[in-house]
């Protein structure tokens, strides 16, 4: 009986964010000495679930049991004390401290008068690293280590605490094959020592190699749990994407005209020979998971990322794009994925934000045409039905959907020929999503060419005329509207074509 008891049990976990139900009554069970894979698209709720386990978020409903005891922690620190260690994709370390200092961060062994006992610190760190069979010097500075080594130090840090449960969020995404293999061996070793491990990854091969069971999530719910030995690729992919696409929003037929954007052989350190075309009135979907290079591709076209080789044509003319201003002058607009970080000036008004990319357009260097600007701002506010008390309201206080409309208005006010959208509806409620889809089609009808980068399959399936699928810097597949379905896209996105 004892061996059958769960090490970790999450029961009926529900988490709401404004306008979004991120997790809906999700369960998760983990045994000691097993590796549980967590699989799902971006936005399926994996990260939210893990953040609740880590204490970074608090669940609205549901409970967490460790060793059968109900947990009551509310902060990462408290979760840590209960033996929960998380290694996030973005590692948490201090570059200017040594390996030993990082492993025992803020828990440095003390000497008689309270000073740090350096010798004890080094020896303790060495002991843990030896246990992991890692030969990184304890006195090395973090900044000099490779990503893989930094990850190992993070694992050592987790081990130095009373780790019972280890969560690894896409740990191999930044590693070379050889490094990943080494990490897998380590994971297996920790498992054999009795640690319960939750392993998040998109790489199915990896999961088949290391995981005992896999829990698939989709749209904030648990779809199912399968023993890895009995699982099949096809089945897993179907589980990941197998929602019925909600066709409440039918795609409008828009006449396709001449090619407005042509990208030829785009290559960077990461991207390999990306080529595609977009016609006026067309929406090209770009589907890819995290790390597929989709954002880098957009940055290249917009002049914020260095290109090794490749050509960009707008309306048939070769354009030299070295900075955003060049791209805008060429008729390209780019809505970034993080509107708060680099899309909006949060402390400024709706009106100023709408005008940000066209400051010079309606004015002389010595006089802003306030009247004209007001007309334009009013026009866009009405066209986009931006809900704001007035145009002088600071955008910080608006809802996500309305903020995104302000960003779209800003770019459409530049009269672009091509609009690149990166995750255009991330963190937006369903109502605003539909409105934004409708606006995109309105502008297609007027001859705009749209490149829509998205990791949300329903969005792509609903709106895209064609889809280019990307994986690890390469375009792995392209489908016309008639021939695409969820499984095909997901196959391409995890590189299994």
């Amino acid at each position, binding site marked *: 009986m004892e061996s059958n008891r769960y090490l970790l049990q999450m029961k009926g976990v529900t988490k709401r964010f404004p306008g979004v139900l991120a997790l809906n009554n999700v369960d998760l069970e983990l045994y000691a000495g097993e590796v549980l894979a967590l699989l799902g698209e971006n936005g399926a709720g994996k990260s939210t679930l893990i953040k609740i386990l880590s204490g970074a978020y608090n669940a609205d409903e549901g409970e967490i049991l460790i060793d059968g005891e109900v947990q009551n922690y509310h902060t990462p620190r408290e979760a840590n004390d209960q033996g929960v260690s998380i290694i996030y994709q973005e590692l948490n370390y201090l570059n200017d401290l040594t390996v030993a200092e990082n492993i025992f961060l803020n828990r440095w062994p003390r000497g008689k008068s309270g000073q740090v006992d350096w010798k004890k610190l080094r020896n303790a760190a060495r002991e843990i690293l030896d246990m992991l069979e890692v030969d990184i010097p304890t006195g090395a500075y973090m900044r000099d280590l490779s990503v893989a080594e930094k990850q190992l130090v993070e694992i050592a840090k987790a081990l130095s605490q009373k780790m019972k449960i280890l969560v690894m969020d896409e740990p191999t995404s930044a590693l070379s094959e050889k490094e990943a293999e080494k990490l897998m061996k380590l994971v297996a070793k920790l498992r054999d020592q009795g640690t319960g491990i939750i392993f998040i990854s998109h790489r199915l091969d990896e999961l088949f190699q290391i995981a005992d069971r896999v829990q698939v999530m989709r749209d904030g719910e648990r779809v199912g749990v399968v023993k890895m030995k009995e699982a099949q690729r096809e089945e897993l992919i179907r589980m990941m994407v197998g929602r019925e696409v909600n066709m409440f929003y039918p795609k409008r037929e828009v006449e396709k005209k001449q090619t407005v954007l042509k990208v030829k052989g785009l290559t960077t350190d990461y991207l390999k020979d990306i080529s595609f075309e977009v016609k006026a009135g067309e929406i090209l979907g770009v589907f890819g998971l995290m790390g597929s290079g989709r954002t880098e591709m957009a940055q290249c076209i*917009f002049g*914020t990322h260095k290109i090794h080789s490749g050509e960009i044509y707008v309306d048939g003319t070769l354009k030299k794009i070295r*900075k*955003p*201003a060049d*791209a*805008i*002058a060429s008729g390209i607009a*780019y809505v*970034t994925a993080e509107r708060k*970080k*680099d*899309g*909006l*000036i*949060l*402390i*400024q008004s709706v009106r*100023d934000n709408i*005008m*940000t*990319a066209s*400051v*010079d357009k309606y*004015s002389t*260097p*010595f*006089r*802003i045409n*306030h009247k004209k600007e007001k007309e334009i701002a009013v026009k866009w506010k009405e066209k986009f039905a931006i809900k*704001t*008390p007035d145009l*002088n*309201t*600071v955008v*910080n*206080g*608006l809802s996500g959907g309305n903020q995104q409309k302000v960003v779209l208005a*800003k770019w459409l006010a530049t009269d672009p020929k091509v609009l690149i959208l990166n995750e255009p509806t991330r963190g937006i409620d369903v109502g605003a999503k539909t409105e934004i889809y409708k606006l995109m089609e309105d502008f297609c009808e007027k001859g705009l060419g749209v490149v829509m980068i998205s990791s949300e399959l329903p969005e792509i399936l609903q709106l895209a005329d064609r889809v280019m699928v990307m994986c690890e810097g390469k375009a792995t597949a392209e489908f016309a509207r008639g021939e695409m379905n969820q499984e095909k896209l997901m196959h391409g996105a995890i590189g299994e074509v």
Partner: protein
Amino acid sequence: MEQVKTNKKINLSTEMTVLIACVGLFIIFSAIAPNFLTVSNVMNVFLYSAVTGICATGMTLVIISGGLDISVGSVVGLTGMVAGLVIAGTGNVALGIFLALLTGAGCGALNGLLVTRFKIVPIIATLATMSIFRGMAMLTTNGQSQIVSADAFKWLGRGYLLDVVPYCVIIMIAMFIIIGYVLKNTPFGRKTYSIGGNPEASRLAGMNVKGVRFVIYILCGLFAGLSGIVTASQTGTAIPAAGEGLEMDVIGAVVLGGASMSGGKGSIVGTLLGVLIFAILQNGLTLLNVMSFWQTIAKGIVLVIAVMLDVARGGGYE
């Protein structure tokens, strides 16, 4: 929606609070300080604020754009020496003023270059140039003062229009009107706010972030140069140590006026009121025979209270 409303209320109160504080101080001193409320004393207040005020117009641009320039005091010293030496040497007042302004703009250009091209944090870059410019000012005369007796030079700092309004006050007011216009009505002003509010979003919107910042530092240096000339004219002497500590008064006035050290916020009217508050405080306390050491402490207290109010409006240091 509630949050939206509070934001708006806050915006309104930023300049209003400063205005109320300024008027309040004025009324208090009128009531208790002998001879405070006379035309000549009020002009004195303005006269005293001219040097800080002219300098603060440039600093307002810098701080709104998210930067900082602590070298302005040294620029005042250096440009004063250039003006004084050229005028004393050649007798050509116009040439002296021109070269001093050029020196100021050059100092600003160096700051701008260090910040934009070499990506040095503004406070460090200008800390370095503060030291460099001061050293250069000292070197011009080996630390000696230079008397400037040309009559044509005196009017700037000591001349009065119709025997009532000092010319340097007119210059200051003109500067505030011009910079106020630029901030409100030109694309350059709009970009200044945008870049301070979110440099990355501004860059992605096609703005030449580095270019705008570079120009702003040049303007700040240029206006500090004008302050330096006025200082030399007011005292009739070019002093290499002139303007020492001025940067703190100037930054204090700008912040008092509601500008945010993290950029994107601030107004020229606020800065003018901030300058006046410090000037009224100093003038009133002097008339009340308060020791100057206490005046310095009072200035510090006013600044702390002002910034605490700003923190209460949102933001703050964490």
